[in-house]
């Protein structure tokens, strides 16, 4: 592999490792500082489902814990995706491009992204329940919806899965070329 590609792969390895630590840490920070997050509503840095929370009667501790547990599911999937990508680029930096391992990592990343995209609306719905369970009767809400971002994520995941299939064909050709004398 070219030195430039190796350098880029190493940089991406570090970025994805940093993301692997940062994403769970940011989400944990968000749930630990939920009151501050709720105060920032409308400034574009707070997830949409927080708009449902009654700011006068903020969710009790048990509702926050429930919300944290629900939110932990997509965060865990995202962390696995970042780990996969970090390992993929670590392999690229070592020159392992057309290998079974790298193809499997690309395929797994696509599958996990698809899972994440499909879970997204349900997680948002579950979070809306968790965060409004503490509201007075009549103000508890359940919100579910599909956004264009969900569709974009599904399409991206499918494209990655097709790319993994193409890479697998490339790997087979590479194996053939290696064993052609």
């Amino acid at each position, binding site marked *: 592999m070219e030195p430039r590609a190796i350098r880029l792969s190493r940089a991406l390895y570090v970025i994805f490792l940093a993301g692997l630590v940062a994403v769970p840490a940011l989400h944990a920070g968000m749930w630990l500082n939920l009151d501050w997050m709720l105060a920032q509503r409308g400034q574009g840095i707070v997830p949409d489902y927080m708009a449902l929370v009654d700011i006068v009667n903020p969710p009790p501790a048990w509702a926050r814990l429930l919300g944290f547990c629900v939110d932990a599911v997509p965060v865990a999937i995202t962390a696995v995706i970042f780990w996969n990508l970090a390992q993929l680029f670590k392999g690229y930096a070592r020159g392992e491009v057309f290998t079974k391992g790298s193809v499997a990592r690309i395929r797994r990343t696509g599958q996990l992204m698809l899972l994440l995209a499909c879970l997204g609306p349900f997680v948002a719905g579950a979070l809306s329940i968790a965060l409004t369970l503490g509201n007075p009767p009549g103000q508890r809400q359940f919100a579910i919806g599909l956004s264009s971002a969900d569709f974009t994520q599904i399409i991206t995941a499918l494209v990655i899965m097709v790319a993994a299939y193409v890479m697998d064909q490339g790997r087979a050709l590479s*194996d*053939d070329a290696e*064993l*052609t*004398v």
Partner: protein
Amino acid sequence: MAIVVNLDVALARRKMSSKDLAEAVGITPQNLSVLKTGRAKAIRFSTLEAICRTLSCQPGDILEYVPDAGGKPEE
């Protein structure tokens, strides 16, 4: 493997080492080892021609078809 590579026999007849053959043919000793051990998936006509020229033999002296025990062709 249905195709057996009898390169060892041809080399012994010519009293030539694998290293010398690899050098004469213009391939790496590693690639010649792949060919000798039957791990090769394909052989280029240019490589076969160079081997035959160096060893003064015919392709049939190096390559032999041996039917598999089950008789089914391999993928």
